[in-house]
Structures are given as C-alpha cells and as structure tokens.
C-alpha cells in the first residue's frame, strides 16, 4: 500500500532534484515538476477509495500520537491534495513553454516547494507542522512573485513579504499561546482539551489565527497584497497562487474554527467578513480597465469572499458548497490566468482595449476564457452554477435572516461580476473591427501546444463538472462531513496506532 507521506515527499525531493538535474540537462529539468505532480495525482487517486471509508493516519518517526507529528489523510485533506496535484500538474506543463527567464531550474524548484507547502498544509495533523509548511508555501511564493525581477514584480513581492511576515508572526504567537494553554501541538489532542479552557483565551487565540492565516487567505482588509502580487507575477505563478495558495489559508481557518476550536458563535462573523470581502473584491474588479490580470486578481478576492461566507454557514450543505466553490474557482481561475498569460503575450499589452478582437487569432484560448468566465459568474451548464446554487440554498435553509441578507448581497455582487466579465468576453469577440482590417494584435497567433493542452483540459473539466457534478460531489460531501465531525477526527487520530 502506498504511504500518503509520499504525497509530500515526492514534490519535496523533486524540488531539490530539479537544480541538480539541471546542471546536466536543462530539458530534463523542465520535465521534473510535471512528472512529480503526475505521480502525486496518481497516488492521490489510488488512495481515495480507501480514505473515503476511513481516514489514514501516518505518524512520522513511528512515535504514537499525540506525541508525534502525524499526517491525517481524510477525505477533506486528500481531495484538496488531489486538486493541488492536478492544478499543479497542468500549470507545470504550461510553464515548460512559458517561463523563459534563466535560470529556469530556480523556477521549477520554487514551484515544487510551493506545491510541497500546500500539500503539507492540507495533510498534516500537527499545528506547528502546519505553520512550517505554511512558511514554505509563503517563502516560495515570495520568490516566485519576484521571479522575473522586473519593477512591478519586485515591488509586489516586497509588499507581499512584509504583510505575509506580519501575518506569520501572529500565527506563531497564537501557536505559542496554544502550547502554553494545552501543552501539546497535535491538533486532535488540542481538540480534546479545548472544552476545558476559558472562552476568552480561546477567542484570543482564534483571533490571532484568523488574522494570521487571513493574510494568506486574502480576506478583507488583509488582502492588499493580492492584487499587486497576482497581477505582477508571471502568469503561471499567478495561476498557482490564485488557485491553490490562497485556498490553503482558507483551509487553515476552516480547520482551526471547526475542528480545533469548535467556535460555533464565531461562524457568523466569518460569514460577515466573507461577504464584505466579496463585495469589495467585485467592486474593485469592475473598475479595472487597464490591466486584465489585476481584474482577475480582484475577482479572486471576491470569490474567496464567497467561499469564506459559505464556510461560515455551518451546515453540511454550506461547507459542501464552500468546498465545491473552492474546486470550481481553482479550476476556472487557473484557466483564466493561463489563458490571459498568452493573450497578454500575443497582444503585447495588459490593457483590455488592446485585446479587442483577439478571438479571431486565438480562437481556442478565447473559447476557454469564455467558458471559465461564465463558470465563475455562475451560468449553467458550467461548474460554477452548481456550487453557487448549493451555497445560496444552504444559506437560505438555515432560516436565519442574517444569512438570507448575506445571500441576497452575494447575488447582487454576482451582477457586478457579470458586468466586468462580460465586458471582456465581448471585447475579445465582438469588438475590434471587421474581418478585412487588421486591428490590434497583428502578430497574434494561437498559443503553443504546451499551453493549449492544460487550457483545454481545464475547460473540459469545467464543462464536465457542470454537466455531471456527480464527478466530485460524492467526495466533497464526505469531506464536508469530515470537517464538521470533530469527534470522528479525534478518534481517528488518537486511536490510530
């Protein structure tokens, strides 16, 4: 039986192997990230049937829990790990052709480290281990943002680093308090001991954690770094950041609120922050006319707001909706950034007005962009509709008027979201002169094959999940139930060995 620790070990080893191999052959070094992540994906899919029945607990070093650092591979962790591997695989295929600044092994090493960090976050069962993997993720993303060493990228990475470090400090302070209160770092053990502590102390710890992880999760007002970082980084980096990195922050917040602290009273506040994030994100995105990637970054903020709102709903359907939206947004946003990467490259500029009529020259990319945009707005038969429907239904099912109001605001923000996405789609297809003239990008041709394969695969996935949500809903349902079921989590870990 494959051990789940391979899921973290393979990317980590490959991250160090890539520069070593690169000393010998550059071409071979480019293939290492796709191979590593493909192996991860296969292992994850193989483990899935077993994990859906009972979670696997792996203790590092053979010590018994709660004294060890353990990996807790439940449906939630494994489904997120599969998502990370899949998205990472597709982006690394894209990056083989897209990243040209030397030395490219540096890029591949950092990328694999980012993937390691993300995989570690979702699979671990120890709070300090979570922090360490979180820092691996953050440092790798600072480096990747500044990879091109251009003016915007360096500035964005600088600001990201400063804010990220402030956030990490708060996380470490919270871990310190946590250890001081309970004397253990194992998440299941803490969960057992939490009912015996004072609510005020728990709230302080929770506040520090939420703010700390919230910087990475990009909730309002902690997300000022995101528009800069996601718009200035190279497009494959923007894709992985938007699709995966910020989701790990949301996962951490959810895990701490539900499994660790069981903070039911705090959930409505989480929903409130989520809605504010959604509204501010969509409003700011609407006004971005000069930079398509900045528009997509603000859209990411908005969608994270929606996911956080859904996490705060607290019912099984609500958390399921949040996870479903997380998956759909990861796929769609990744697709949008990958497509935008080549659209910008071919059009020669980031401005929306310079991309008009681009669909004539880049038909496949434009279709994929349209599919992803429609999915995010929530139009059937694409994937985003099912998740939005689940979230709104869950909010209304709770029957509390606050959630009903939040759901109405979320739908109003959808109208704004539609406004700016449809503007772009129209600009691609229907503006830009008639067939005879050559306006705008004259040297534009379709994106190369290395880029088209991931783009088309993602578009096909978005449509497939939209028409057959059963592909993912079963797994996500189990994952949602796992998040809400503290008791099962604790028994799974503490009685594992």
């Amino acid at each position, binding site marked *: 039986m494959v051990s789940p620790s391979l899921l973290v070990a393979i990317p980590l080893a490959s991250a160090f192997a890539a520069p070593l191999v690169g000393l010998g052959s550059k071409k071979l070094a480019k293939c290492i990230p796709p191979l590593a992540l493909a192996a991860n994906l296969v292992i994850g899919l193989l483990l899935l049937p077993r994990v859906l029945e009972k979670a696997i607990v792996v203790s590092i070093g053979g010590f018994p829990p709660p004294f060890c650092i353990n990996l807790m591979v439940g449906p939630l962790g494994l489904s997120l790990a599969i998502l990370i591997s899949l998205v990472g695989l597709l982006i690394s295929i894209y990056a083989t052709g897209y990243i040209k600044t030397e030395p490219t092994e540096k890029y591949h090493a950092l990328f694999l480290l980012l993937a390691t960090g993300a995989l570690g976050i979702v699979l671990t069962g120890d709070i300090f281990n979570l922090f*360490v993997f979180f820092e691996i993720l953050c440092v790798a993303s*600072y480096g990747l943002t500044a990879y091109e060493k251009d*003016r915007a990228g360096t500035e964005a990475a600088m600001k990201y680093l400063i804010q990220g470090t*402030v956030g990490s*400090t708060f996380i470490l302070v919270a871990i310190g308090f946590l*250890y001081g209160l309970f004397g253990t770092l194992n998440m299941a053990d803490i969960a057992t001991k939490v009912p015996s502590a004072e609510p005020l102390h728990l709230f302080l710890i929770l506040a520090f954690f939420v703010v700390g992880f919230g910087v990475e999760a990009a909730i309002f007002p902690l997300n000022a770094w995101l528009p800069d970082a996601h718009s200035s980084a190279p497009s494959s980096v923007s894709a992985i950041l938007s699709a995966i990195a910020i989701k790990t922050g949301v996962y951490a917040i959810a895990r701490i609120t539900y499994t660790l602290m069981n903070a039911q009273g705090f959930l409505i506040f989480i929903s409130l922050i989520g809605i504010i994030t959604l509204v501010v994100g969509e409003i700011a995105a609407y006004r971005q006319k000069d930079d398509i990637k900045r528009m997509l970054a603000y859209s990411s903020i908005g969608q994270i707001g929606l996911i956080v709102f859904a996490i705060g709903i607290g019912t099984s359907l609500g958390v399921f909706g949040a996870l479903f939206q997380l998956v759909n947004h990861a796929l769609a946003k990744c697709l949008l950034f990958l497509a935008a990467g080549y659209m910008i490259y071919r059009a020669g500029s980031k401005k929306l007005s310079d991309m008009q009529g681009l669909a004539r020259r880049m038909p496949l990319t434009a279709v994929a962009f349209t599919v992803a945009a429609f999915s995010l707005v929530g139009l059937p038969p694409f994937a985003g509709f099912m998740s939005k429907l689940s979230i709104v239904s869950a909010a209304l099912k709770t029957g509390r008027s606050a959630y009903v109001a939040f759901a109405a605001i979320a739908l109003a923000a959808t109208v704004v979201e539609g406004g700016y996405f449809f503007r772009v789609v129209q600009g691609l297809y229907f503006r830009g002169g008639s067939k005879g003239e050559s306006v705008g990008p004259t040297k534009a041709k379709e994106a190369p094959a290395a880029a088209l394969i991931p783009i088309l695969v993602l578009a096909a996935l978005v449509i497939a999940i939209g028409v057959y949500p059963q592909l993912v809903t079963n797994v996500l349902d189990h994952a949602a139930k796992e998040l809400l079921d503290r008791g099962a989590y604790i028994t799974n870990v503490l009685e594992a060995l």
Partner: protein
Amino acid sequence: MQQVANYMYYAGGGGLILIGLYMVMAKTNLVKIILGLSFLDTGTHVLLVAIGYVRGRTAPIFSEGMAETTPVVDPVPQAMVLTAIVIGVGVLGLALALAIQVYRHYGTLDVRNIRGLKW
C-alpha cells in the same frame, strides 16, 4: 517583585513585537521596515521560549554527568524556536535581496514613493 519576575519575559517578548509592529507601520525606509520584521521575529521567539520556561529548571540538553531525571524546562518550545529562527533567517535574507532589487528599479527606499502598483 515576584510578579514582575514572573511576567518579565512575556513583557519583553510582547514589547519587542509591539516595537516591530510600530516599525512596520510607521517607518518609511524599507530597511527599517525589514528591521521591524526582524524585531517581530525576535519578539515572537522570546515569547515562545518564555512560555516553555519553568522556574528552577535547567536547559534541556543532556551534557556529561547529568542524570536523566534532572528537571529541565520544556524542550518543545525551544525546538519550535529553532525552527522559527531558521524560517526567519530565510525570510529576512529574501527580504534584503528584494530590497536591493527594489532600489535598483526605483532608486529610492522610501516606501511612500514605491507605489507603482496601486488601486
């Protein structure tokens, strides 16, 4: 006196964190902000070690001639701090390298002028 001695280390760690936050929020020179980040890290480390401290016990390192039952302070926070120091060093190194790059592009380290990306 006893009270002060009890909370001295926490106050020290907390104070360092507050100084660090002040520097990040209020100083406009990029190097000073990075120094502020360093203060934040140091303060957190002091805080963590203080949490693990137990009065009257000694360091958790088994040297020559020490029995295994010698009372020691809690070693777990010290392990955490070691890890955190390493993380901090990495981040600070990256931060200073980025500061050099920013200076090359912008010609200044004043944060109020490094505002190419806004709104």
